């Protein structure tokens, strides 16, 4: 697993209080990991801070699963 993927997983485990085993690439923040709309906003903000990127709202809407977050950040992280 890439370093970015490791970090993304760690943030999700921390913010959503879930077990590492639940954080699979297909896992949806809201449907599988118990996030509500505010949790999702907070996750995006944490990704922005950790990876020093700015994720526009229209792109943030397309980040709904662990895998989508990892691919987005692998592409855009500085």
């Amino acid at each position, binding site marked *: 697993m890439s370093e970015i993927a490791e970090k993304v997983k760690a943030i999700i485990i921390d913010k*959503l209080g879930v077990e590492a085993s639940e954080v699979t690439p297909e896992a949806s923040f809201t449907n599988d990991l118990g996030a509500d709309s*505010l949790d999702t906003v*907070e996750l995006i*903000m944490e990704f922005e801070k950790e990876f020093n990127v700015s994720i526009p709202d229209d792109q943030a809407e397309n980040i709904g699963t662990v895998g989508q977050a990892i691919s987005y950040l692998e592409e855009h992280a500085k």
Partner: protein
Amino acid sequence: MAFRRVVVTGLGAITPLGSTVPAYWEGLHQGVSGAAPITRFDASKFKTRFACEVKNYNPDDYFDRKEGRKMDLFTQFAVIASDEAIKDAGLLEGVNKDRVGVIWGSGIGGLKTFQEECFNFAKGDGTPRYNPFFIPKMIADSSSGNISIKNGFRGPNFVTTSACASSSDAIVAAYNYIRLGMADVVVTGGSEAAITEAGVGGFNALKAMSERNDDALSASRPYDKDRDGFVLGEGAGALILEAYEHAQARGAKIYAEIIGGGLSSDAYHITAPDPTGEGVVLVMQNALRDAGIQPEEVDYINTHGTSTPLGDGAEVKAIQKVFGEHAYKLNISSTKSMTGHLLGGAGGIEAVASILAIQHGIVPPTINHFTDDPELDPKLNFTFNEAQKREVRVAMSNTFGFGGHNTSVVFRKFQE
């Protein structure tokens, strides 16, 4: 229209003396001081470096991490104390939750949350990165909101804010909603968690807090000649108020009856108490009238008594004016000598103390008394230093807040 009788059927507390009602009472009647050096932040540059913190507090003992992270400390305290009271009253089963409300008190709300978020913004380059939980954690009503969400209580729900009278106002509001028939049960009380840089620095700037850093344990000394200000406390006190017939029908245990609430305003100054004590006279008279009792029926007054030079004297003068000769037969005590001043949470834990005094027939003391204040009548019984045994049939709990808000609540030993 006849008002319904309202009784107390559950109690909860998380305080600087103990984190449950029995632990709190143990500290109260043993006369323990809750003061100690501040651990919540580095206070080394502050004028006051001690406070009455809730000891050994770890949110993980009460909340899963995700849940706890979304609540400011004042809301965590609110949920912990109300959980104890709700369990004590047996409210989770067999009660129509549409008829259960939550009316909570907090003078400030999430001060720590506000401070941290503003600090983080100021540290940055001007790009706003406010956490989405900032506002819902900070707003004062997140306390009553979280209590209702956790327990499914769908009755009236709001927070009262009147500085240090906040939770007494919540209790009076809860009493009114139930006696008017707008709810059958209300979870009430209040909480505060202001031991932060902004809280301590702000109250220091007002010259309101004790600066007796070399003797923190005895710094809160209401009615002592050398009192030099209040000691900041934190925590929560919770009461379950319930319509008497509702409590009777479900066989609930009854601690006491709430029989009156009085409110008034000093209309004098935003922080200083009116030295004539006129607003305080008015609030006790209003409470006695609402309770439909004579001053001679009161046995115990749990005073506001914060240990400030001006405030303590004004309240005592007012007590003498309202109670006349009977003032000498009263037990008067300020439990803030032990707990410190919980600000908007004071009325909650002090209502609990007043009810426990009725239940146990013991008046908790005003500790830290060393030197009589020549300005105060020495024939008054301030219950100095040690608890006193006494049958308490009627107890009055006074709280007054910045802004000139005065509130007084009257509890009576329950009789059919």
